[in-house]
């Protein structure tokens, strides 16, 4: 069976992941169609990172099947994995740029490794990629000389280096100020539309999700609690979804504060 342009880019069926017997993902199933920009939302500990890790083949789930671009993901088959890896990009939360290489070399690395193009051609290509993320002037700088926002931009350029059909993006707004976040969101949106890629973004930032996503999935306690458009999530009645969307402290979600009456303890001495 061959993969057609209109088939789902990501198909996840009955995915189960456990850590020490504790279910972190409980029978997750969903599909992502070409051109969608899917945001995976949810409170910390909801299993977002675990899901992403399974999707890129870095974590092996206990049960279930993942298909990327029509192909079943088999993390243990190195050859098949590498073939598939050429077709998707990953932008890591901290950037994960190689600190011993300049930004230019970081973006050039996958192209050098996999394209067989001449060095001059690669240089021009990398220049264009960096220009698209607004880093052309910084191309000879090293990762530790860049600000957080610039690192995310460089990481995006590297994830897009091989013109993938699909990119995974982990927490694009983590550790950045709101203005920089807006800039990154805008860039992600622009890259997704101009390059016709499907995007899966893991985030806990509601504002950012509204800006980027065409569809939202909310993970809660290892299950999909909500799956729909930004308009639908605004109107969703579920108390957990409502609390998360509105960012309220009180509700079913959140840290259960444990307190103790010290006054009583001191006065009664018991």
């Amino acid at each position: 069976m061959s993969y057609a342009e209109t088939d789902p880019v990501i198909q996840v069926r009955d995915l189960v992941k456990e850590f020490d017997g504790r279910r972190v993902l409980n029978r997750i199933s969903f599909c992502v169609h070409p051109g969608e920009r899917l945001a995976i939302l949810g409170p910390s500990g909801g299993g977002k990172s675990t899901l992403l890790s399974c999707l890129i083949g870095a974590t092996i789930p206990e049960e279930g099947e993942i298909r990327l671009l029509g192909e079943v993901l088999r993390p243990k088959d190195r050859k098949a994995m590498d073939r598939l890896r050429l077709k998707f990009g990953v932008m890591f939360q901290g950037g994960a740029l190689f600190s011993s290489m300049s930004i230019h070399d970081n973006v050039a690395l996958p192209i050098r490794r996999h394209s067989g193009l001449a060095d001059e051609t690669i240089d021009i290509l990398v220049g264009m990629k960096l220009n698209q993320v607004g880093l052309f002037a910084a191309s000879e700088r090293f990762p530790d000389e860049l600000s957080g926002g610039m690192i995310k931009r460089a990481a995006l350029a590297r994830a897009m280096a091989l013109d993938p059909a699909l990119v995974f993006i982990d927490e694009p707004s983590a550790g950045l100020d709101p203005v920089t976040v807006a800039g990154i969101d805008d860039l992600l949106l622009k890259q997704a539309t101009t390059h016709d890629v499907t995007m899966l973004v893991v985030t806990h930032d509601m504002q950012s999700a509204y800006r980027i996503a065409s569809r939202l999935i909310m993970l809660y306690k290892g299950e999909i609690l909500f799956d729909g458009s930004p308009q639908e999530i605004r109107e969703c009645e579920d108390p957990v979804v409502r609390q998360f969307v509105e960012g309220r402290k009180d509700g079913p979600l959140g840290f259960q504060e444990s307190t103790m009456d010290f006054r009583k303890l001191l006065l009664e001495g018991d």
Partner: protein
Amino acid sequence: MLSPLKAVEKVGRSFHFFCRTATSVAVAPKKEWRFRIPLLIEQILRAGLMSTPIVLLFAGLVGIILVLQTAFQLAQFGRVEMVGALVGVSVTREMGPLMTAIIVSGRVGAAFTAELGTMKVNDEILAAETMAIDPIQFLVVPRFLALIIVLPCLTTLSDISALVFALLTGASLFDVPQMTFMGVAQDWIQTSDILVGGLKSAVFGALIAHICCFEAFHLKGGASSVGTATMRAVVLSMVAVLAADAVFAYFTI
């Protein structure tokens, strides 16, 4: 502490990692060498530059100590000129390869684990994998080959440094003429000593690189675990070097 089961598991993983490195070295496609050679040269230069001064200094001091320790005894038998043979043989056969490997574990091996461990913690190794770049091929093989090449060279330098300082000490403190020292040393040092020393060094280099890269690739947790992994890697590689030396000693009696 490590439970026995965990220890067995770790040895298994380590062996698997070693096999992957070895096959990556051996069955690389021709085009791989185009990427490998610049990385290898970089690692050779770094390892060499990092450890040459300390190896020279260390070996020189050991040369001086060996003369001071042995010349008095030899003088009692009226054979002080034999100091060249004693120092020459013990340095080329045993001390040179061993002390160079110990220094390189602490200097270069520690740097390997610290650098690769930081890359592991920062997801850089995972990032290489997701770009279909084999991290073993990209990060481990250049370091592995570099130490196999660099360690015998450093051992040769350390042999020379120890002998030169021994010669100067013998000449200035014990009136052993320089020509006599060199003559005796030449008579007693056999080509096989030098060859065995070189072979040992290459094996030590492989052991150090393997252990230090393995510890980095398999560390779990955050930044603080890089420190512990580095310490463990250095200790383990020193123990492995000594154990391998014992095996060599047994087979070359």
